[in-house]
Structure formats: structure tokens, C-alpha cells
């Protein structure tokens, strides 16, 4: 029930969400010289950093599954960045928007959702560069048309987690500090830098329990490998994402009344 109401609320405020996302996108690069181009330049610079580290500083044994490595890495880091920044920004978003919550009748859940959607927009802006790279390598396959599926699942998962984190941070400010490390750990526990299929034993189990693994594998298969057969993993992740959303909606609803007083 709560989930249904939550979804309805968010739908009702879609115009507000839409304009706030637009505002965030505009405001983020306001005053910088490259402006909007940062959305394209950011992932490229990230790619360059990791390319330098793992291509030159820490040379690895060549795994044919991951060649060309930078392209493989690009397929994973782009959705990961969306996930990563959404959670980190969500932790501070209610505190930053305190004046809104306290002074205007404002549906607080809009704020974490806007954060996730703004980062989705950055992700989508980076996608054409990735596609372009794939075309250059002659890798683009029809499986890329399935992309909306993992994106949707990731959206549900991220919104759920963002709701939980944003509401809890209001009460436990230290979450903001811990979170950076947790997300960093999560990054290494997800197959962005390495190939999911190559892990065995405990590492394999850990990866299977990590919902982000299945999403990343989906992206990598659809884009990098040119086929998709990870249906079960993706479906299981959808279930987990739905649960996370339900928990987020529930928790946010429970804490909503205290938000205006605690922020």
C-alpha cells in the first residue's frame, strides 16, 4: 500500500521533479568554461585514469574476455558512476534542502529522487560516447537494444537506496561519512574492473549476492560482448530492487514527519 502511494505521490509531482532535474543539470556546470561538456569529459577522464593505472602502472595478465580492456571498463564504470554519485549525493540532499522541507509544503521524497534522476541524465549523456567507442571497435550489436531493462532495474534499486539513505542521514549524520567508504568498498566488490565469470569460490558467492554485479554483467554483455543471457540474474535483481524501493518508501514514510523537525 505504502509503495503504491509513494509511486502515486512521485507521479503527481512529476512536473516538479522534472523542473528540479532540469535545474540541477543547468546549475551543476554553471560558471564552468566547458559547461555541459563536463558530462562527456568526466567519464573520459575517469577512463583515462583507470587506463593509466591498470594499463601502465599495474600491468595485468591479458584476459581475452576483457580485451580491449578500456572498452570493457567503460561499459561498467558508466552505470557505476550513476549509482555511486546518486547514493553519495542522496545522503546530503535533505539536509541541503532543509529550507524547503521546513518552510514550504514540499514532498521531501522528491529530493532524493531528483538526485537519482539527475545522475541518470548524466549517465544517459555519457552513453553516446560509449556507443561511439563501441562502433569504432566494431562491437555494437543488436543486444544493445535491451539496455532499457538494466537501466530500469538500476533506477528502481537506486531510488530505493537513495530514499533509505537520505532519510536516515537526517537522524544519523555520520552516515554521510561512512557512506563514502562503503560505496568505495562496494565498487571493488562489483565487477567493474574485473570479469565476473572469472571469479571462483567465496568471491563468486559474494558477487552473486551483490545486486550491482548482475546489473553490471547485463551492461557488459549487452554492450561489450554483444549478447545477453543473464536473464535470471537480472530478474533476481529486479526483485531485490523492488524490495529496496518498498523498504525505502516505508522508511521514508515513517520518518517523514520527523524530517521537518530534525533537518
Amino acid at each position, binding site marked *: 500500500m505504502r509503495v503504491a502511494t509513494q509511486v502515486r505521490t512521485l507521479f503527481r509531482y512529476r512536473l*516538479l521533479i522534472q523542473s528540479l532535474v532540469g535545474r540541477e543539470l543547468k546549475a551543476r556546470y554553471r560558471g564552468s568554461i566547458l559547461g555541459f561538456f563536463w558530462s562527456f569529459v568526466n567519464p573520459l577522464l575517469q577512463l583515462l585514469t583507470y587506463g593509466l593505472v591498470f594499463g601502465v602502472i599495474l600491468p595485468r595478465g591479458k584476459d581475452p574476455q576483457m580485451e580491449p580492456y578500456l572498452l570493457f571498463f567503460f561499459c561498467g564504470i558508466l552505470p557505476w558512476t550513476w549509482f555511486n554519485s546518486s547514493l553519495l549525493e542522496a545522503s546530503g540532499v535533505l539536509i541541503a534542502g532543509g529550507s*524547503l522541507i521546513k*518552510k514550504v509544503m514540499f514532498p521531501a521524497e522528491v529530493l532524493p529522487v531528483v538526485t537519482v534522476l539527475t545522475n541518470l541524465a548524466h549517465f544517459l549523456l555519457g552513453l553516446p560516447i560509449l556507443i561511439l567507442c563501441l562502433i569504432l571497435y566494431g562491437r555494437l550489436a543488436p543486444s544493445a537494444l535491451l539496455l532499457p531493462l538494466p537501466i530500469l532495474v538500476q533506477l528502481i534499486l537506486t531510488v530505493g537506496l537513495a530514499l533509505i539513505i537520505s532519510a536516515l542521514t537526517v537522524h544519523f549524520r555520520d552516515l554521510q561519512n561512512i557512506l563514502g567508504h562503503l560505496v568505495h568498498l562496494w565498487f571493488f566488490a562489483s565487477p567493474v574492473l574485473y570479469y565476473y565469470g572469472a571469479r571462483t569460490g567465496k568471491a563468486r558467492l559474494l558477487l552473486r549476492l551483490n545486486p550491482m554485479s548482475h546489473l553490471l554483467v547485463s551492461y557488459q554483455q549487452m554492450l561489450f560482448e554483444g549478447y545477453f543471457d543473464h536473464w535470471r540474474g537480472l530478474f533476481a535483481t529486479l526483485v531485490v530492487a523492488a524490495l529496496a524501493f518498498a523498504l525505502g518508501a516505508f522508511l521514508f514514510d515513517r520518518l517523514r514527519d520527523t524530517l521537518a523537525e530534525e533537518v
Partner: protein
Amino acid sequence: MTTPAVVARDVAKVYRRFMHRNQFKTLKSALLTGSVIRDLTPDQTFTALDGVSFEVPKGTTFGVIGENGSGKSTMLKLLAGITKPTRGDLRVDGRVSALIELGAGFHPEISGRENVAINGIMLGLSRREVQERFADIVAFAEMERFIDAPVKTYSSGMYARLGFAVAIHVDPDVLLIDEVLAVGDEAFTRKCLDKIGEFRRRGKTILLVTHSLGLAEKMCDEVLWLRQGKIADEGDPKRVIDAYLTYVAGGEETLLAREHGLSAGASAEEAAPARAPGDPALAGGYREGRWGSREIEITSVRLLDDRGHERHVYVPGESLTISLAVTARAPVDDFVFGVGVFNADGVAVYGTNTHIEEFKPGLVEGTGEVALVLEDLRLVEGTYLLDVAAHRRDGTPYDYHRGLYTFRMKSRIKDVGVYRPPHHWSFSGGISLTVPEVRPELDLHETEGEIGQTDGNGDGDGNENGNGGVSTS
């Protein structure tokens, strides 16, 4: 007019307070000491509103007054839907716009134009409506030249103006205003008030939370007075505001009454052995004290209002009775009773005694009471000190109390001086002024001020002669 715009039924709001606030701020300590559960249960609650019920009929302007911390702002937040009542039922019919913080949610980096659009949507407008009203909003805020500059470059006045303009153009059915009219310059405040006036004429409902009693009295059809989260009074603005003023004065009353008792007691002790008999007239500086031979003793002094209640705060136009309880150990036939009124600077405002007013002394025997009735206090706001005395006709004091008693004048008109003559203004020719709609307390207690045109002198004379009513027994 049939259904009320706002209905509150037994509304209560309880805030929780946590004793271990600081420890609880960190998750680590909560986890380490295992006090999570204990810290999550509130140690203390604070009841901001307690069982408040009222209705606001559609199309009326409803004021909420009260001291700081009386729950006014909480009420407004509940009405705006920012927080929810802990108990009770609250219904608001129609679109609500709250002028609680102007320009809340403006993003500093983007232009005024974009902020207006988003702020409008935030306040519940559709994109179409924002577009339609945009020109009006900008014109109202007088921001045509700056609307495309980022909001961070705005002055605070510009910021507030734009915020007000958006909020007011949401065209709500119910407008909530919380003391926000203090922003902006004179002209803009004027404009805001005009706009609110226009709202009233168009039959919209307005809820006004304010400390400005003048504004409340001028604008509101009905006023609600909150005291410590409860309704103290509700109804006709003038009546409620008067009751509120009396209550506020009451706080000072207790203070003055305490001072009164204390200083009288203390000095009586300290000055028990008769001190140098000072001339009742101003000899040296004005210092409080008590002296005299006590052949006639003033045992108590009470300040009474026209209903015979002891009071220490008065408004102009009221009557003040200074009542002295007097005891003579042996019969005395040479005596004068006198009273002097001094302002806080020690300036003699008025003084009289039975000798000056040519009463012939008879006899004082046993106990008795002397009362001087000041029928129509025409004093400006401030604290006043009283001298009361019994002495011989040659001035030798029996019992002289100097400055031991205080009373306070309270007035909404802050005129200055020591005396307020009955007065009125008149203008003719090419002079135009707006007459204040409410002439505070001039029309409460001293209608002569406005009506009496020629009896100003007569009134003054009457005042001087009329208060010679001293009776002995």
C-alpha cells in the same frame, strides 16, 4: 460562505526532545553503548499546541496573536502541511499558499526567471499558469531589469520581493502569512499590504500570524489568541487584543507588585528610626525612602482601578485611586495628606495635598482611610513613582513615603512628555493625510480626544479641581 475554509478540531502538536542529544548525534556512540533504543525514546516532550479548535469561515481574515513560543508558528506550519498534528484533525479547504519564508528554495546559481518558474511549480502551479503569470510576477516584484541574472547576485530585498511576488501570484484560496511583511522597504510593504487587501476584497481567506497588533486589529475580522499552546481567547479583534494587552501588562503587573512589596518592606525597616525630615518639595536628588515621627502612620498604600481592584498598570483615560490606610496612636489635629506623582526621571508630574486644596484639618483618631482619585490619567507611557505623606501644616513629617510605590502607564501611542492634553488634529486646504483606521485607545478610553473640540480647556480645569476629593474619617 457555507463551509469553513479551515477547520481545526482538538489539534495538538507535541515535539520530542532528546536529553542525550549530542551523544545521539553520532551513530557510533549509540551503537557502542547500546543505547540506540533508549536514545530513540524521547525523554521529554514539549507540547507546542494543546487541544486547539477553531474554524475560519471562507472569505475572512483571521489573525493569530500571542507571545513568542505560544505556538503561533507551529499552528501555521500545521496549516501549511509542513508538519502533521500529533493529535486532532485539521482541514484546509482549497489551495494554500504559505508566506513563511520568502524565496525558500531559490537556487542561487540559476537566473531569477528560471527560479520563478520552479518556485511557482513548487507552490503548486502548472507550467501554463507560471507562463501566464510570469509578467505579473516580475512586474510586481519590480525586477524587470534583473530577472535574467543569477539569484545569487540579488540583494536580500530583491530576493524577498521576488519570493513574495511568486507566492502571492499562486492565487491561493487560503493565504497563510507569518510576519513576513517586515521585509522590503516602505513602498514594497505598502504594496504587499495592498495586495493582501485585494485578496480580502476578492473573498479569499487569509490567516495572519503577527506580533503587530495594530495590523491585526486593522485587517482581521477575527483574532485568535494563543497562550502556551492553548486558545486564550477568540473573537472580535479589538476585544481579544485588549484582553491580550491586559494579559501582557499583567506580567509586568506581577513584577511591579513584587517590587512594590519588597521596596516598601525593605525601606520601612531600614528607615525605621525617623530620618532627617526632608522638605516634601524636591530637596536635592529624588531618592526613595521613608521618614517621619509616625504620630500618624501610613500603614498601607494601595493602587486601585475604577472597579476597586488593585492594579499597577493603567492605560490613559482610566482612573487611578491611591488609597492610604492611616493610623494615629493619639488624636492629632494638625495634619495634611499629600500625594506626588513623579516620572522615572524624577520629574514631578503632579503633586497636591489637602492643605494646598484648602481643606481645614479636623481630627485624626484611630484608623482611617484616605483616597485620592485621579479620575482621568492623562500620562504618557512609562513608569511612575508615588510619594505619599502625612505631615503637619508647617511641613514636619509624620510619615513620609518617597518613591516607594510604582505604577506603569501603557499606551499604544508612543507620544512623549509628561502630560497628554486632550487633543485632536485637523487639516484643511491642500494637505492630505490618511487617517489611521484605528486610533488605539484614544477611542477606547478618551473619546474626547477626537470629539471634544472646544472643551479641551474645560476638561483640563475640571481635571485639576476635580481630584481634590479627599475624605477623612
